[in-house]
């Protein structure tokens, strides 16, 4: 009798563990390019506002000839700004997944420059 109960318990634990593993989202990073090979005017913004995500990475890439001010940052749907980084040239910011945010990038130089891409990861 006790053996039967143990087997049932083990089976229930296995089913619960299996369901948990199946339902928990995969931890791998998903990348999205939200600005692709265009000229970016001074203070013009690229943004990924498709869906807010728990971001872990944001990047702006002018190209191999970088030399201009840039900025990457994130904004929550409520409008709070986080993980704001200014750089001279190509720029990335990697951080823990603290907030549900939209990702932004910008050319902060005084003139228009070609930006190869801006991308985010979550």
């Amino acid at each position: 009798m006790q053996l039967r109960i143990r087997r049932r318990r083990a089976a229930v634990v296995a089913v619960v563990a299996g369901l948990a593993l199946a339902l928990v989202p995969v931890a791998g990073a998903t990348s999205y390019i939200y600005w692709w090979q265009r000229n970016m005017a001074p203070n013009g913004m690229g943004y990924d506002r498709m869906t807010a995500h728990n971001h872990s990475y944001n990047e702006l890439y002018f190209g191999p000839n970088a030399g201009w001010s840039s900025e990457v940052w994130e904004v929550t749907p409520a409008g709070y700004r986080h993980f704001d980084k200014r750089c001279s040239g190509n720029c990335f910011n990697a951080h823990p997944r603290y907030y549900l945010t939209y990702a932004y990038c910008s050319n902060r130089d005084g003139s228009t420059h070609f930006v190869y891409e801006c991308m985010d990861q979550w």
Partner: protein
Amino acid sequence: MVTVKRRRVQFAAVLILTAATAGLLSQFVLGGNDKVKIGNGSVSVLARASKAADSLPQSVLDYPFADRNFASPRGDGSRLLHVEGTLRLYAVPGKGGMLCLVEVDDAAATAGGSCADRRILLTGSIFMADRQEDGSRLVVGLVGDGHTYAEAEGLRVRVESNAFVLRSVAGSSVTVGSPTAAQTIDLGG
């Protein structure tokens, strides 16, 4: 009639000469702080013997940024510039004449990087400015040989191993300089 024509020609010549002189003066003499040059763009810390601590963390090499910007996939030639608490700064040779500054903070589990053409070191710094939750900025920078200090709002720190760290910067600019010259870095609004 001939005299009037000659005077007009003389007047035009003087006008052109004045305009050219003004143009040259504004370009080469009155160019402002942005045109001040310090050093020759070399970064001597990159030439020192390599140590185990100079290697970049694997997590940084795994970011897409590394593949696009670093001269080698392993970040060969990187040098640890500065350690302050849990913050570490590295210089990394970049592709196509670029040089990169990488920051890693183990406690905060954050990392960042900035890569730019080395020529920028003649007139300023390869820097990163991170906005903190209190609105101030943490500014870290890589400068060329010859720079001895960085300063913001009267707080001056020494440049060591071609790097500086300025905490709690409230203003929109930082000054880097040598004993004889200074350059202004615009952090933006």
